[in-house]
């Protein structure tokens, strides 16, 4: 009885979902039914990756991160770039490391910023920032970076996708050449100066109250890091071409793995930076966070449009999930592993079901792995304990002497990293477009509202429900539902697919205002 009371909603949910799935089974054949469920789970997995990060951020910091969809999208586009154009990424390493070198000296800059007289302190950081931006705008186009150009068809992302698909990348990539009359070392020096100026500006803008004291050891450490980054930058510049060649010669599976990892890390870094610089000053003004994150979503979408173009892109699947030749479609997992098939044919109820290995197996497995690992992180680690405690009562955690601010940055990085991972994994299955972020964010919001806004289990259950409902509506849109009181089968039009999830949300919220697994206030 105790068990029943505690898990009432969970049990009811399982019963209702099972009943609905059983009902849906009446309307379609067994193979369609299985494939639709798998598709629903796969869409649910992607939604879950976005929703989980969103819900942890909302729970811990009360920040409604409307830029989460845009960051998901950026993750997808970054994956595309690393996967299709490794040469560009290698070219970007040198300037990126030089910019980072400027920020490595942050303790020194903070000390310097604290020593400047109070008068006029507010104007020089802005000037420094403007100078850094000016340098980057002037020098940027002259850097030796080979990049695609959405405005020139021969060099557009679409053509490069095709090249990657046909395996012609290695023969088409040319080493980048620096443009303009500047000697190359001067260009790099300018980039380094921009990094230093930007770091100085950041130090000046983030005025700390009280004294800032940098110990000699910290200064020394930052100097060492500075030297290390510059050395790395020089190294990457010197061995640019060999590195590019090695990378491109890699198997596409490895390239995909690298792309996913890099995009996730870049997303996490971006999230951490976002929290530290932009979100942090706004904890006292919650409603303005909405404006900020919305503005950032705007900017993210525009960046995507400017860099990758307005036309949607596709991303080729890695070879492991792309085989169509001999022995394909496979009849089982073993055969898939041997032949790298794109699909597996399974006979269910006397009819064949075609299961796509990437979409319907790999995504679900990765979703499960992330689910379990984030759950372990939340339940079994010290950080997770702090996060859970912070969700319940942030002030109390702070009172216990824990630096919640640092945890905030970490959690923001984690959440955005998860969204970027979702984007990275969704790129080959859903394709890339400048609207994918907004669409998925809405899906994630609905999933969270259904599951309970700040509940991790709720995020998982809600995402799966939204994914299943969407896919069943799409399937029924093609098949039609035979209703007893209608002569013609009822076919839900495509616009009813989002409407169905929204209606489910409204229904759940009106019955259970906290969502299925939400905490009662």
């Amino acid at each position, binding site marked *: 009885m105790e068990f029943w009371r505690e898990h009432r909603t969970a049990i009811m949910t399982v019963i209702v979902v099972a009943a609905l799935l059983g009902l849906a089974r009446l309307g379609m054949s067994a193979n369609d039914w299985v494939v639709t469920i798998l598709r629903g789970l796969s869409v649910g997995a992607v939604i879950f990756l976005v929703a989980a990060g969103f819900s942890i951020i909302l729970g811990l910091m009360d920040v409604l991160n409307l830029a989460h969809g845009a960051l998901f999208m950026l993750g997808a586009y970054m994956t595309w770039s690393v996967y299709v154009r490794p040469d560009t990424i290698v070219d970007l390493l040198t300037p990126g490391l030089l910019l980072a070198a400027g920020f490595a000296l942050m303790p020194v800059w903070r000390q310097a910023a604290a020593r400047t007289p109070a008068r006029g302190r507010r104007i020089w950081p802005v000037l420094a920032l403007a100078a850094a931006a000016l340098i980057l705008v002037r020098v940027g186009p002259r850097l030796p970076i080979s990049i695609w150009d959405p405005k020139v068809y021969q060099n557009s992302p679409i053509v490069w996708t095709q090249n990657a698909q046909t395996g012609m990348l290695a023969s088409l990539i040319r080493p980048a050449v620096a443009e303009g009359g500047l000697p190359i070392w001067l260009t790099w020096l300018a980039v380094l100066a921009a990094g230093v100026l930007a770091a100085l500006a950041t130090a000046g803008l983030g005025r700390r109250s009280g004294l800032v004291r940098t110990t000699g050891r910290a200064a020394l450490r930052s100097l060492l890091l500075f030297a290390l980054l510059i050395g790395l930058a020089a190294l990457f510049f010197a061995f640019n071409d060999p590195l590019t060649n090695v990378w491109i010669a890699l198997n596409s599976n490895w390239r995909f793995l690298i792309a996913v990892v890099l995009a996730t890390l870049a997303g996490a870094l971006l999230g951490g930076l976002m929290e530290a610089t932009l979100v942090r000053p706004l904890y006292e003004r919650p409603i303005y966070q*909405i404006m*900020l994150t919305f*503005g950032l979503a705007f900017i993210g979408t525009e960046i995507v449009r400017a860099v990758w173009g307005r036309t949607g892109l596709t991303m080729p699947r890695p070879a492991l999930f792309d085989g169509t030749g001999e022995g394909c479609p496979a009849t089982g997992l073993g055969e898939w592993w041997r032949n790298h098939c794109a699909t597996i044919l399974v006979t269910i109820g006397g009819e064949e079901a075609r299961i796509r290995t990437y979409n319907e197996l790999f995504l679900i497995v990765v979703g499960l792995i992330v689910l379990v690992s984030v759950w372990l992180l939340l339940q079994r680690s010290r950080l997770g304990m702090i996060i859970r405690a912070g969700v319940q009562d942030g002030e109390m955690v702070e009172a216990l002497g824990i630096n919640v601010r640092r945890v905030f940055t970490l959690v923001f990085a984690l959440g955005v990293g998860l969204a970027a991972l979702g984007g990275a994994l969704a790129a080959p299955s859903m394709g890339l477009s400048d609207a994918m972020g907004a669409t998925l964010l809405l899906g994630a919001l609905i999933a969270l509202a259904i599951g309970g806004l700040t509940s991790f289990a709720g995020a998982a259950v809600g995402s799966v429900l939204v994914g299943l409902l969407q896919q069943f509506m799409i399937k029924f849109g093609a098949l039609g539902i035979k209703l007893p009181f209608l002569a013609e089968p009822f076919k839900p039009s495509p616009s009813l697919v989002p409407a169905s999830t929204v209606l489910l949300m409204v229904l759940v919220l009106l019955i259970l*205002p906290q969502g299925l697994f939400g905490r009662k206030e």
Partner: protein
Amino acid sequence: MTASTRPGTRSARPQVTRPSWWRAYWAMLLLLLALIALPFVLGLLEGATVGDVLANEAGRSKFMQGLLIEVFLLGLYALSYDLILGVTGLLSFGHAMFFAVGAYTTGILLKSAGWPFGVTVVAVIVAGVLQALLFGVVLLRVSGITFALVTLGLASVFEILIKSREFADFTGADVGLQGIPKPDFLNPSAERLRLYFIILAVTVLVYLFYRRFVNSPPGRVCIAIRENEDRARMLGYNTFRFKLLALIIAGITAAVAGMFYAIYNPIVSPEVTGLGYTVDALLIILIGGMGTLSGALIGAGVFRLLDFYLLKWFGENAAFLLGAIYVALVIFVPYGIVGTWQRRSVAWRRAWRARSGKQ
């Protein structure tokens, strides 16, 4: 010893005494006068006569009137959102529906049903009340962020209905509602100056009404609900009633704004049903200052004019710049234009006086 004969500690300058209404409203009055004069001034600058402007000759003045009409309508719409969010503290993500219901009701009644304009106005107001009641039913069950999500859901369903092909005969679906027969005396092309002044007058009246409402006992209860709903309830107020009142007022205002939108624009675009349009209202009141009412009007002006001129000057890059400007506004104008002014103006003035006094 009376107060007036006490030795002056403030300043040696003679105090200019102005009536209190002047001190409260001088900026608004000047703005209003400027807006009344603007069509004629623009016309005269261009070389047209007052008669030309009155006869609605095409030109810069007429164009600016159109742009300002859009600003006023956005202002009305944002004002209603400010009443819900800024004054009463209800976060609704379905506000676009309030506006769109007005626009589509007008369009469908005038076009498909062929109703006369006067009856349509009444129907629009009734529709505004009805949708406020619908949101009120939701409000009985949920509050806080859940209310935001349910209203988002309701608005999305409305958006999907508007865009669905099944009702395309009435709503125009994705294309938008076109060919609405406009009443002759409000024709946006032939009688634009009249439309301009009518909408300006409506905006001013609604603004004054809102100010009066916020300063009235029910309005004060709404503010109390924003600050601490539990405490307001403890004091014996039926908070639901006041929230519903705010919703009804906002619903009517937004529906009327939508009605004028349908009359002014050649086409009612389905975009006004979307979440983006709600976010527009949110951005406007955040730019102007939440809960300040006048901030909604000023924010609408900044929002629309910025949007228009950035698009005109920078073309493709406009959206990027707009995003950057929003982020900059959040950081540098922390409480919106009016809000920041109200909080800081005393300190600024004091600093200004101190500085000019020294030199």
